[in-house]
């Protein structure tokens, strides 16, 4: 699986992140207080203004401290009822219709069907739910204020904080219910979309000479399955009726051949359902370092000219190697040996032997003693996950027997060395290309976690929507929330723009380039116009920096790739997401509360 974000544990992340958050919030509170004081000072004079601001501030603190769960529950229930009355559930029907016609748009012959289906359902759900959250949250409060129905609540003994919180909670509940329903239907859709069997005609299988060895050896047959979903599998069958279906398009099938079928070699049978398609591998990643062609440590491998520098390459037939160091490797965790999965890039500088993969070697080294044992030599497979088991008992090149956990692992650490053996051919490796597949977790749970990512985004949108609707009219609040959504989705681009990394400059510079048909990399002609444009862009950059910092990056909550590629969504990732969501939601809620409190209607 390709993941270009660095691996950071939740424990390492939360400390600095928390401090940064507290500092930002502190600064924000100070700035907000000063601005409020200036505005009220202009109205009531400096002293009275200060008194008002401090009064409101402490009132607010009291309000927030004395939230009543009972009243919040009642208000949330009100929001839920209101949403249902507004036929929110029609979105679910829309989703069903979407799934009905999805088959038209999804490539039936895709080589990675599960990936396509899972990405589709997750994307469709997130768009629908986020739009729904947007409409629900921004339109409700302004409508209440306009119809004056808000007075029926305001006259009751409720605090404005409870109104804001109740709304958020209510809409989140509705969104959650929808997400659960959509998730369940999607799960069935994906499962059904994957299911297929192949027909195997025993009569058409041919004798396999390569497997039988000599004349006395038992007979073996090979053949191909019938087509289904745009692919076929190779099938190998031996005299005892054991059948093996080769993996194709990331899955394989179970096949049982009854003795009767085998005996007269006629007729046909069906394979079992696909296996290995919908999985959630739990990978344990190691730390990657490189060794150059002369055996010295190197920061990186060779660049073979790829524009995309995710993988770094090691040269074949030299001492160059990619080395992964794994920690916490214990006997209890891996009783049968180390299950290693490889995803390699292969780069040939000459044709070599086309029929065979470029040979590579995998060895295990003890980082303390330096003892290294070659585990096996294998032909490299590209764009396919290659599964290798490093056994408990290994043999060194001079014939000594060594034990994996006794001799090669020290303090739970072990190194795995990857080398390319063919001269002038290259292997490409990235940190996440080699991992220990500790075990598989439940796909259904992982799928659900993918929906948790969407849920986090939905909560944020509801929060922002309600916050904006406390002081803006419905349509304006909608535009504002939509802005948050768009900036959040394109946060990478916005950050690039804010830090001046974007090629072609800021808005004014780009506008000049557009009009003058200048390309994006040539320097603009120096002059007053250019200087002015650049300075204006600098100001814009600063503004954008503020915006980028106050809007969450929605791609951080997107776990679709994990689910689609069949990887366990790391707990750290979800925890980080949850913490980020709360870090944004809390200030958003407080701001919303203050706006509602200071509005005329609320008094």
């Amino acid at each position, binding site marked *: 699986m390709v993941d270009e974000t660095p691996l950071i544990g939740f424990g390492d992340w939360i400390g600095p992140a928390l401090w940064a958050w507290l500092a930002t919030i502190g600064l924000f509170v100070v700035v907000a207080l000063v601005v409020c004081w200036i505005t009220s000072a202009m109205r009531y004079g400096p002293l009275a203004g200060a008194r008002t601001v401090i009064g409101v501030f402490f009132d607010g603190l009291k309000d927030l401290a004395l939230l009543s769960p009972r009243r919040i529950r009642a208000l949330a229930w009100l929001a839920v009822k209101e949403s249902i009355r507004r036929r929110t559930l029609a979105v679910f029907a829309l989703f069903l219709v979407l799934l009905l016609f999805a088959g038209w748009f999804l490539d039936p012959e895709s080589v*990675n069907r599960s990936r396509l289906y899972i990405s589709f359902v997750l994307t469709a759900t997130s768009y629908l739910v986020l739009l729904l959250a947007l409409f629900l949250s921004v339109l409700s409060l302004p409508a209440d204020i306009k119809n004056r129905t808000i007075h029926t609540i305001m006259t009751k003994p409720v605090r404005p904080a409870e109104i804001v919180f109740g709304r958020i909670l209510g809409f989140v509940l509705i969104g959650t219910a929808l997400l659960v329903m959509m998730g369940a239907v999607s799960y069935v859709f994906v499962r059904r979309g994957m299911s297929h069997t192949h027909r195997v005609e025993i009569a058409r299988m041919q004798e396999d000479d390569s497997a039988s060895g000599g004349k006395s050896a038992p007979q073996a047959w090979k053949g191909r399955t019938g087509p289904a979903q745009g692919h076929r599998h190779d099938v190998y069958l031996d005299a005892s009726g054991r059948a093996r279906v080769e993996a194709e398009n990331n899955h394989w099938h179970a096949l049982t051949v009854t003795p009767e079928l085998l005996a007269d070699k006629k007729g046909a049978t069906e394979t079992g359902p696909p296996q290995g398609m919908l999985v959630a591998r739990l990978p344990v990643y190691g730390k990657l370092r490189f060794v150059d062609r002369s055996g010295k440590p190197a920061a990186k491998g060779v660049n073979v000219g790829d524009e995309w520098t995710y993988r770094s390459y090691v040269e074949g037939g030299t001492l160059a190697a990619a080395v992964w160091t794994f920690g916490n490797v214990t006997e209890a965790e891996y009783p049968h040996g180390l299950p290693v999965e490889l995803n390699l890039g292969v780069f040939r500088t000459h044709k070599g032997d086309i029929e065979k993969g470029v040979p590579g070697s995998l060895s295990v080294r003890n980082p303390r003693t330096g003892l290294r044992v070659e585990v096996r030599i294998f032909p490299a497979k*590209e764009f396919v996950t290659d599964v290798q088991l490093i056994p408990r008992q290994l043999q060194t090149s001079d014939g000594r027997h060594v034990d994996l956990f006794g001799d090669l692992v020290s303090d739970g650490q072990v190194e795995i060395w990857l080398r390319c053996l063919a001269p002038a051919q290259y292997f490409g490796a990235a940190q996440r290309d080699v991992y220990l597949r500790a075990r598989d977790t439940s796909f259904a749970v992982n799928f659900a976690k993918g929906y948790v990512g969407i849920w986090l985004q939905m909560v944020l949108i509801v929060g922002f929507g309600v916050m904006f609707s406390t002081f803006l009219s419905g349509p304006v609040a909608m535009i504002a929330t939509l802005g948050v959504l768009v900036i959040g989705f394109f946060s990478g681009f916005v950050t690039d723009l804010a830090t001046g990394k974007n090629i072609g400059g800021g808005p004014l510079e780009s506008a000049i380039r557009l009009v003058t048909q200048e390309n994006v990399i040539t320097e603009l002609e120096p002059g007053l116009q250019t200087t002015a444009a650049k300075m204006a862009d600098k100001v814009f950059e600063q503004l954008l920096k503020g915006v980028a910092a106050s809007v969450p990056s929605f791609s951080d909550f997107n776990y679709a790739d994990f689910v689609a590629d069949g990887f366990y969504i790391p707990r750290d990732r979800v925890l980080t997401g949850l913490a980020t969501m709360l870090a944004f939601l809390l200030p958003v809620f407080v701001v919303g509360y203050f706006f509602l409190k200071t509005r005329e209607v609320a008094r």
Partner: protein
Amino acid sequence: MTSRRSFYRKVAYLAVIAGLLLVLNWLFRPATGAPGGGTADPGGRLAQVRQQYHLGQTYLGEVDPTSETIKLVTLGMRGIAANILWTKSTEYHKKKDWTNLAATLKQLAKLQPNFISVWEYQAWNLAFNVSVEFDDYRQRYRWVIKGLDYLKEGMKYNEREALLPSTMGWFIGQKIGRSDEKKQFRRMFKEDDDFHGNRPMAERDNWLVARQWHLRAEDLVEHGGVMRRQGPLLYRSHAPMCLMNYADNLEKDGIFGEVAKLAWRAAAADWDRYGMLEMPSSFVKTVRLGEKELYQARAVKLFAELEALAPGLRVKLAEEKRARLSDTQRQVLALPGGKLLRLKKMGPGTVFGEMGIYTSAPRSASVIATERCVAYKLSVERFRVIQEKAPQLAAAVNRFIVALLAERVAEENAKNRAAQL
């Protein structure tokens, strides 16, 4: 009073609506076919124009509901959507995300099903660029086939575009028959039941299949299709070339004897057929490539006729022109083949002919000025005078010439060494 006024206003509105409807009807009324097959009603203005320029969706090829839905859903922002998809596809290609690349290309084609270059370019992208990204030749083959399937899909939407079947033939011929993996590809292609369906084994050679596609393209052009970019001289040569390649490959596969002979004979016959086709030409209206001898004989005859009109005139004219040439031009004309061999090109500040001063031998090469220039001459006599009157100056000239010669020798050596490598 007010109610009457509002009544009038409504009547006016109705009249305007009716008027607009009439205009709409005149413009947009669809054409309807008569039961017999002809058109009962040619339709509105737009329908007629569409008919006239063959722009109707049904004329172009199959109408796909999915594609139409996608086009409608983009609400006129089809160009932007296509741009975004195109950028995404390059990004996926860069990041080697083949699943998403293939999916994006499908969407792209559905969005612009009648944009021929998209089909052509992206099919080529899949079959040639993406396929080589894979290390395993079997996977490479599958992506070549994916490219071919993509083209086939394109043909469904564009039934009259001869470029697509022609490209298909080109890919099947060149990619499968000429790439590094041709041995494996040709073998796999023969065994590919999914691609061939029930085509008999003997006809599954990639060059024969390619020929079928080229013939189909030719056939399309003959029946009202369009061939973009290629003239008949080119696209009609593909089919006979396929037969030659087929025969050539038979021998490369180790099949000689009667079979190979027959294949060559068939190729020759097809090449003759190509030679007898009428091709547009820039000299006369049409030519047949196979009739070269005929044209040559005709030229000889015409030449003789011309000579007979005024005997000796041609020779006389030639001699007059020769008389007008300069000495150098005449020398050049006398060179073998009458051609100049450029040894070196020299720019301002160059010295040449210096060897003659010392050896008093004829110069080893001629210098011809290609444009107006200023040249200073140093004769042997004048140089002798300098040697007597100002020996220091002469020594300086000598030193300069020696340095120049040394430089030239070094240059020659380098050239020789490069030639030996």
